[in-house]
């Protein structure tokens, strides 16, 4: 039977129909990405303060190349171009903060291209990549241009150019020549810690100033864009293990503060290990992720040939993230035991 038009509203307005919920909180992917980028501003400014114009150039090349690579790859793959979501910008910025200021400009270029094109878009783009793009970019250039990437310069005195003088990072000095030599350079432990804290030392752009990084991290923690589950276990594990095994005079003689403030640990733990896409998303798995990353960092720092372990530790844990997520799924409400995935 045809429905007779018995009851008719006076005007039938055009109504939007969709499936609920019809309310949404204020967050969006773009807002998160740009806020995280914003939280890196203090660290970026400090790096410019300490390394001058060369730092500006490295940052610029990374940002521009990342954005171009993102747009280019999306154009090639006939996908919508989404530069405004900020993820490519963030990857570029993080990569820049992972490079030494003295890097010739083809290094940030190659790093960004590899990060965005290979590590991100070959795997399906935002949300699908397995490995942290910025760290893949860094590892790629580290292995390709190892000589340059393991030479660092001290902070500058003039703005426009770097001193030609190269220095080793504190961790390299510690490993190669021992704590005594470090103290010789920095005179007292307090002065050493202070320099590490404000950022007056050789190293990658963003790893230098612990204070600036902590400022950004505190902001993100407050906004709940990152949670404690990865960074705190990560840093704590590094502290504890270096204290136990890090010393030359037997167990429990290491210097955890020095280790915790060096080698990009703060940058890596708060800004890179926390990358949602490449880490586990189950909270308990995140804690395991953090602890393992910390243990691997210490293993590489103390036993490996390469003194800065954070990057490799995070990349290694990226391999394990899907496994962790799979193994540590939360228990469904009302279920005695989580069902294993049947596949």
């Amino acid at each position, binding site marked *: *039977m*045809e*429905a*007779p038009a*018995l*009851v*008719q*509203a*006076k005007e*039938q*307005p055009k*109504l*939007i*129909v*969709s*499936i*609920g*919920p*019809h*309310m*949404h*909180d204020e*967050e*969006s*992917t773009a*807002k*998160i990405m740009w806020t995280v980028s914003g939280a890196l501003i203090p660290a970026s400014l400090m790096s410019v303060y300490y390394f001058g114009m060369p730092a500006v150039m490295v940052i610029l090349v990374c940002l521009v190349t990342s954005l171009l690579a993102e747009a280019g790859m999306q154009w090639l793959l006939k996908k919508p171009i*989404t530069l405004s*979501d900020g*993820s490519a910008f963030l990857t570029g910025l993080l990569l820049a903060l992972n490079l030494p200021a003295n890097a010739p400009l083809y290094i940030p270029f190659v790093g960004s291209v590899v990060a965005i094109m290979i590590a991100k878009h070959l795997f*399906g*783009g*935002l*949300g*699908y990549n397995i490995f942290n793009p910025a760290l893949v970019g860094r590892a790629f250039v580290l292995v390709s241009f190892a000589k340059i990437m393991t030479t660092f310069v001290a902070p500058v005195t003039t703005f426009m150019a770097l001193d030609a003088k190269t220095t080793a990072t504190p961790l390299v000095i510690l490993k190669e020549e021992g704590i005594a030599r470090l103290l010789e350079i920095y005179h007292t432990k307090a002065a050493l810690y202070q320099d590490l804290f404000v950022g007056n030392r050789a190293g990658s752009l963003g790893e230098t100033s612990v204070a600036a990084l902590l400022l950004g991290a505190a902001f993100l923690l407050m906004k709940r864009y990152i949670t404690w589950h990865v960074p705190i276990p990560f840093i704590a594990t590094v502290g504890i293990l270096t204290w136990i095994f890090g010393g030359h005079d037997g167990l429990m003689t290491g210097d955890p503060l020095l280790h915790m403030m060096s080698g990009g640990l703060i940058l890596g733990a708060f800004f890179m290990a926390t990358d*949602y*896409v490449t*880490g586990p*998303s*189950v*909270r308990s798995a*995140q804690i395991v992720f953090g602890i393992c990353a910390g243990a691997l960092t210490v293993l590489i720092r103390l036993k490996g040939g390469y003194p800065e372990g954070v990057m490799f530790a995070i990349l290694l844990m990226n391999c394990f993230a899907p496994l962790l997520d799979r193994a540590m*799924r*939360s*228990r*469904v*409400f*009302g*279920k*005695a035991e989580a*069902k294993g*995935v*049947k*596949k």
Partner: protein
Amino acid sequence: MEATTVKAKDTFSGGVHPADNKQLTAHKPTVTAAIPKRAIIPLSQHIGAPTKSIVVIGQEVKKGEKIGETAGFVSAPVHASVSGKVVALGNFPHILGMDIPAVVIESDGKDEWIGGLKENPGYLTLSPDELKKLVADAGIVGMGGATFPTHVKLSPPKEKPIDVVILNGAECEPYLTSDHRLMLEKSKEIVEGLKILMRILNVSKGYIGIESNKPDAIEAMTKAAAGSPEVKVWPVKVKYPQGAEKMLIKAIAGRTVPAGGLPMDVGVVVQNVGTAEAIYNAVRYGRPLVERYVTVTGRGVREPKNFLARIGTPFSQLIEEAGGLTDTAAKVISGGPMMGMSQYTLDVPVIKGTSGITVLPKNEVNTNSYGPCIRCGRCIDACPMKLQPSYLGLYIEKGHYEDAKAYNLMDCFECGSCTFVCPANRPMVHWVKKAKKELAKKKN
């Protein structure tokens, strides 16, 4: 009686805190809506078998006269909500989004009750079976939204004894205040309804769970229950979806309904406060369910209000009575914004489960498209069922329904918390519904 402070442990993990916007209507006393000129009464207003029409076109009916007969156990009869003449039988738009058989009655304006309604002041002396029959004959279904026939819920199998009845006055859904007003205005009736429920089920413990953002309702209900030591008013934490029965049972009885199970598995029956009131009316006055409290709210209507409306009242009429749509009105939702369903026409009628009509203006409607999941884990934190909605979304998006099932698809009760928090705007609820449908199709 009980302290009104909420203990934090009396809740569940997960959940979200959407802006509740209840201030739009919470303080406004309920007004009785006009009798609809033409009441459109769907023959299917509940979960279960639709009823069969027992009237013909042209037939005169009285208010409360049965017009739809049950067809099966899980079913509930439908009654005329106005007195007048049946003018049409056919398929009419329904809030589910499709046309469904309904009876259209043109009101004669007299609003006469059908004769022979039995008033019974001594109702508490009736036997449980007699009471249950009254409830069934009155066509009462869950008024909290799920519209499950109440008498079915009140007939638990023998091996599942019930020892707790909980009235759900949580009303966690944003905007809606119909339960809130009902609790203020009909507190005594609700308490009596609860006592009837307890008698039917032979239970000595009754609770009324109310979110602690409604102190006046808590006070009113506490006062109404003052003389009845077996009834306790229980404030619960303000959090969506605290009103979902599993969450409420956890908070009040401290019991966890097993996954895939029902409240009766842990000895509990949960009923909406409106249902309790309807039960009281049915038992005390013999009146079938023909009207209910409906909140008409949102920034898309000019004067948000609470109504006591007849079943079958078209949305357009209630919205008109609430001052009409504003110029920017863009979305009309049957129910609240979290679980409600958006409507493409205002011709749909109020049914037994319609707790409110929410009209959102354009600027509050999210029309952004969704992006890829960035695995932020917010949905996992938000899910009250402790599922991993991100994986459900990923699997279903690619058509891997079986994998989604392995990720506990079937335990999702579509509360929408995950979609609410998702920064990538991913429509998990939409996908979950789709996957459930596809899997059901495959089974057949």
